[in-house]
């Protein structure tokens, strides 16, 4: 296990931690596409091969003793191509991992063996060990089996990375690098990178055999520099599931990044205070994620950690607010066809018309609290536990146009750009940071830009103060931790919205 420490996370920042990983394959597929003689590489990556049958045999063996058993194969792999002023690179990327978790339930507790291998003999040994060392106890809880299902999913792509050679991928990265404005003497460096990641899952339980093979692309452009000693930077990205159609920025994205780069030299700290604010969609997403995302992960209910528990069925936000979590939306970073406990994806409405109606569950919380399961049991990797987690979490569209929402801002701040945030499910406090805040006076931007802009406050207050929601829902990719660990890919989003908040 290579833990992503808090320090490492801080230094690498969200976007790069998101980079994905390896074991066998994307490299093999890409290499297979480069030239004819590599038939060995093309055939070596037989996923899922016999693994589904092997896991089904082990689960059946475990169920002879235990009331519930399951197996999860989880792997992550990736290949990146990058270019900066000093060089260029093609290599495996991220934190490659592959392994299997065997899980049994003894009637009251879960027991798991996690093996960093798909080797059948190692898996059989772990199965024997579970049978030998774990006793069946008092049947305090019952886990109802999911409906039988056998299905496989793959990512839908326009340009499948397997059909583009690594040399061509590097060439695309170099073209992108050349698009950066090197004539501006303030630009001291830049980096363009395209990561192609692959996430594979096999879930097996009684009657259930699910397989997914998901491809994602993380294309990031970053530039930095100095103006009279003042540092400045900007970045733009195209991230999500899909193929190399995501491997370039649009002209509009690039232009916006250049503008942000120039503006970044003139920013100053926000004068702390309470403001009328309009959030751009990415900032609305931060609010969604940190307020009623983490706060309604139901494993927190079991631990008496979530204040939201007292508000099920009660108003928690303005009536115009509806909030959803939906892993079934195709093509996003938080999308998946089934969760890591075998529940197939579907949308969950968390807040409907301002009322909290449904938390997000994992198997443990649904079992212990006797509630229906939602598709939110997720793990960082094979060697980590499953928890109730978000996927794609967002405020639903309202009825105003974005222009109407911005025009309504007379004296206040317009917050843009996704930085980070942290939850406080028990205290219902909130903290999240936007890249910039633009000052508005008398309904017009003054040209003054503050950076960064940290929003703090009390969740019900901020949600109840939402007075306008636009109709321009966007989802922003990110990486979500539970506390400061257990990182999983997510998106969060919403439309432009208007509320009142403390900004510093």
């Amino acid at each position, binding site marked *: 296990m290579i833990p992503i420490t808090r320090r490492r996370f801080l230094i690498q920042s969200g976007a790069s931690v998101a980079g994905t990983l390896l074991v066998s394959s994307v490299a093999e597929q890409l290499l297979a596409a480069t030239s004819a003689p590599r038939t060995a590489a093309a055939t070596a990556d037989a996923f899922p091969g016999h693994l589904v049958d092997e896991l089904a045999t082990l689960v059946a063996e475990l169920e002879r003793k235990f009331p519930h058993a399951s197996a999860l194969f989880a792997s992550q792999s990736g290949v990146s191509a990058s270019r900066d002023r000093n060089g260029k690179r093609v290599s495996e990327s991220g934190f490659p991992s592959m392994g299997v978790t065997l899980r049994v339930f003894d009637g009251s507790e879960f027991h798991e063996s996690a093996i960093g291998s798909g080797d059948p003999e190692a898996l059989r040994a772990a199965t024997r060990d579970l049978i030998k060392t774990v006793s069946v106890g008092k049947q305090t809880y019952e886990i109802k089996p999911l409906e039988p299902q056998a299905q496989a999913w793959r990512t839908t792509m326009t340009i499948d990375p397997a059909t583009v050679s690594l040399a061509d991928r590097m060439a695309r990265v170099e073209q992108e690098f050349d698009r950066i404005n090197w004539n501006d003497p303030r630009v001291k460096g830049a980096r363009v990178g395209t990561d192609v990641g692959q996430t594979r899952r096999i879930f097996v339980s009684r009657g259930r055999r699910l397989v997914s093979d998901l491809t994602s692309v993380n294309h990031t452009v970053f530039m930095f520099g100095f103006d009279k000693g003042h*540092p400045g930077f900007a970045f733009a990205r195209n991230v999500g599931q899909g193929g190399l159609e995501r491997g370039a920025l649009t002209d509009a994205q690039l232009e916006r990044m250049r503008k942000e780069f120039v503006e970044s030299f003139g920013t100053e700290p926000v004068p702390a205070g309470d403001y009328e604010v309009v959030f751009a969609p990415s900032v609305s997403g931060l609010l969604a994620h940190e307020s009623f995302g983490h706060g309604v992960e139901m494993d927190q209910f079991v631990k008496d950690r979530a204040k939201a528990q007292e508000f099920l069925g009660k108003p928690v936000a303005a009536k115009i607010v509806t909030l959803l979590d939906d892993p079934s939306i195709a093509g996003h970073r938080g999308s998946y066809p089934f969760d890591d406990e075998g529940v197939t994806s579907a949308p969950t409405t968390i807040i409907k018309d301002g009322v909290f109606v449904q938390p997000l569950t994992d198997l443990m919380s649904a079992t212990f609290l006797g509630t229906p399961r939602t598709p939110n049991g997720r793990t960082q990797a094979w060697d980590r536990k499953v928890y109730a987690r978000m996927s794609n979490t967002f405020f639903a569209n309202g009825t105003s146009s974005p222009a109407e929402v911005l025009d309504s801002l007379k004296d206040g701040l317009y917050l843009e750009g996704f930085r980070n945030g942290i939850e406080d499910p*028990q205290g219902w406090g909130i903290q999240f940071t936007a890249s910039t805040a633009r000052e508005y006076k008398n309904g017009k931007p003054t040209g003054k830009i503050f950076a960064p802009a940290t929003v703090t406050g009390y969740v019900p207050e901020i949600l109840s103060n939402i007075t306008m929601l636009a109709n321009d829902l966007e989802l922003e990719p990110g990486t979500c931790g539970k506390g400061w660990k257990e990182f999983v890919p997510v998106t969060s989003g919403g439309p432009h919205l208007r509320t009142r908040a403390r900004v510093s």
Partner: protein
Amino acid sequence: MTTTSPTSPTVEALRKELARNKRVHAWQLRSTRHVGSQTYLVKTQLESERQTSGETHELTVFVKNGELLGRATATLDDQSAAAAERRIDESVYMAGLGGDAPWTLPTADQWPEVQIFDPALSAAQARATSRAVADAWRAEAAAHPGVRPSSMELFCGEEWTTLENSAGLVAHGSATRISLLTLLLGEGSKPSERYSWVERRRASDLDVKDIVGRAAEEARDLTRAVVPPSGQYGVIIDADEIVGLMAPIETNASGEGLYQKSSRFEVGKPLPGEAAKGESFNMYSNAIAPYGLTSYVFDGNGVAGRRVQIVKDGVFTQPWATKQFADYLHMTPTGGFANLEIPTGNTPLETLKNGDGKVLYVRSFSWLTPDQQRGNFSSEVRVGYLYEKGVRTPIKGGSVSGSVFSALGAAHYAKEQVFRGDYLGPEGIRFDGLTVSGA
């Protein structure tokens, strides 16, 4: 489970194929094996117990690409001996598509004695130690009036590493780690929770009684916490938050930052910021601190661990640099940044807390993430105490903001030294000039 050793079939196969492949200019192989135990409690009941084990071999090949040195990495598991030739071919191909300025791999060195292994957390003992710590936690969590346990997570285990390269370096190391997450709930007119995440190399450094006791006290205090008053007054930041606060210094002091020209620092010049009004700032990267979380015998490339002064009396004395960037900067490599060490001051923490006027002592922020280049930060206070006229008031909410670089110009360091996993330094640092935004 096979063992990671020079006789591992995967390692043997890789060595053989590396010797055969004429395009490989240099190589590095890092093999890691871990065995661990994880325990999860809900309240005081066992929710889940997990045993984990795994082995990986991370191979990096270097090829000459004109004047440049191309590099690519491949990770193999312990069943990959048959795939060795193919994975090397793939890596050579990838490495040949790119390149950086050439640098050389480290050769064999004198390894320092660094204490990072605890027999109580070894593979053989991890499960038993885990159960003993969980029992201790249960007992301690039940011993504090006004609080009740929410949950606990405990991770412990051992990791073996072998590093070898084409320059003849071979190094072995074994390290252990134990991590404890404690969540306690305070009961009162205003319910509260206290979250504590503590990691150590040695089981005996994980003082369960102290960790739970402190979390219990803070959970209780939070039931009557208030938002701090707004203004500019003294702010003491606790040792637990100093590594996060100093991240911009670490980033700007890196050899990579200097080479890429992204650093604001210049060797021999004072750190950017305002003129010093406080005590002088000194900072070390210490890779040989006993049982430090980021202590190491050798770093990722095989550079021997050492203690290096990065900042002396407010002046940037030398960067920390891995072998690659040290070669570029024509300096001796220091190895990767390790434990943060800051010398203590002469003033007792109690005196710093009770100066003239108000002083806010921040035990923990919600999430402190300073801007790495500008050093600006703003973070909500998760747990703090306001000291004023001899009265201590618990604080939650509001925020503290400022610039790390400016703040260091008006800093006072506590006399008491603490060890907090990857930090060795004053128990608290008082900054004058930060902005508190609250009531």
